[in-house]
């Protein structure tokens, strides 16, 4: 590796990424018709604009909730706090929802929930569609084995526990309707991509708990632990819907 080239690349990286550019770029740059400071400013601007656009693409509902200028400021702060590390930008947005929680912006928990939903949709789009669990496979499970079976969830399934009516906000955004006022709603949302397309499924508290446990590899018996007997029928019905929607792909 070339030491001189490495030094030059460290200099240019800092000149582009650091909030304040170098004092006198002409010490390093020269030979172009465009003045060095102007040429450098093109790269400095492009770096921020590209990453800001990337965040805006993935989190357009959050952008609508906070407003255009506030989102620009938010995205710029995110880019400064979390410079990209990966070779591609495909997964850059994964850092945005947890980063929102570290900020002092108003309603950050609510916004982070919405951001998490948007990111789950991005991940689901990029996940493969796997064949659904065959009903015959379930029918073959012996009654005494039910408690110990584990279900393999679809690659695109994301279970998002939440404290707000996040799915309703996203739905209004998607349909270009006025955004509803923020409301508390304990429960969650499941995101999945199946042969029908991309789906968001509202979950109540119990459904969220059970589905989260199943997707984390808990055996069925442990996933249902602590659930009042009166709720089991409701979970059974939900389970039947989840099977049809392709939440599970295999038993193990």
């Amino acid at each position, binding site marked *: 590796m070339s030491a001189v*080239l490495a030094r030059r690349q460290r200099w240019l990286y800092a000149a582009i990424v650091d909030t304040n550019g170098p004092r006198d770029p002409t010490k390093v740059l020269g030979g172009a*018709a465009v003045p060095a400071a*102007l*040429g450098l400013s093109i790269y400095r601007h492009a*770096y921020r604009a590209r990453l800001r656009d990337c965040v805006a693409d993935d989190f357009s509902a959050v952008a609508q909730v906070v407003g255009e200028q506030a989102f620009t400021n938010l995205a710029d702060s995110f880019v400064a706090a979390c*410079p*990209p590390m990966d*070779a591609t930008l495909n997964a850059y947005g994964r850092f945005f929802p947890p980063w929102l929680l570290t900020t002092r912006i108003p309603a950050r928990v609510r916004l982070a929930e919405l951001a998490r939903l948007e990111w789950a949709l991005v991940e689901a789009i990029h996940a493969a569609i796997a064949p659904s669990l065959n009903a015959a496979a379930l029918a073959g499970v012996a009654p005494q084995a039910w408690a110990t079976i584990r279900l393999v969830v679809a690659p695109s399934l994301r279970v998002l526990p939440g404290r707000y009516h996040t799915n309703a906000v996203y739905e209004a955004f998607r349909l270009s309707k006025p955004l509803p006022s923020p409301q508390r709603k304990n429960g969650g949302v499941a995101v999945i*991509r199946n042969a029908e397309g991309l789906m968001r499924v509202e979950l109540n508290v119990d459904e969220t708990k059970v589905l989260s446990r199943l997707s984390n590899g808990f055996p069925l018996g442990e996933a249902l632990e602590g659930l009042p007997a009166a709720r089991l029928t409701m979970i059974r019905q939900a389970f039947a819907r989840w099977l049809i929607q392709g939440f599970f792909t295999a038993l193990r």
Partner: protein
Amino acid sequence: MIAPSKQRMGQPNLGIGVGLRGQHYRAILDGQPQIGFLEIISDNYMESAGRPLEFLDRIAAQHAVVMHGVSLSIGSTAPLNRTYVRNLKTLRDRIKARWVSDHLCWTGLAGRNTHDLLPLPYTKETLRHVCERIRKVQDMLEAPLIIENPSTYIGFAESTMSEWDFIAAMCDRTGCGLLLDVNNIFVSARNHGFDSTDYLAAIPWERVVQFHVAGHSDEGTHVVDTHDGPVIDPVWELLAQAWPRAGGASILLEWDAKIPSFIEVEQEALRARDYLPQLATHLASAHHSPRRINKRVGGAA
């Protein structure tokens, strides 16, 4: 004049193509594109097992595809990202892409990435470094890598070579191919104050596998390579000077921002025929089916 057997390093001339963009998937699959090939941004499909790859599989089954990446970072002093190169090869083999290209640039340091195509100082030291990495990539790909000339806005005081001499030496030492972006030559000629004919005079034409054209933004004091509009006449004219010298090679229009309908992008790409009469003859024999107007994507009868 290059002997036909040596033209394009043995690669086919795919005619006129456009960059494949997500908003055009349906139009391409449902319509009957007149273009001869599509160029994908490799990076958009390498970490995905989902919908974009499903569309790409279907499109690649019907159309010739070439791969163009933005993150190989061939000039970086960070260690070569071998996983990235392996992923490139896997994707190439999956979609049967005709070739793999990336830029003469660097994009980041170890653990940090700007996702921009950053310029290199053109020195003997840089040349050694870049050539060594191109050879490694070619060994992994088991095929020549195709390198594109960049558009740049700064130069380095320590540069001892012109970009065109650097590229000629790079091609000579590594056997790599060249994706000659005539819009980038135009942009850099303005920003650096050189004459594009000097650039073209040094090109090893037998290495040119593909051409790029694109729109740019003229800011008066400088030009920015924005890919957000039609190609201006001087860029087409530059293509008209360059194309015959390579013995003809695949021409691709890049349109990456403010992207219009597929038909508009396609029509812009096909303007190449106005500047290259010999190409029009070639396409007339290659595409004999009548054009079907696809109203779903905004075409007018």
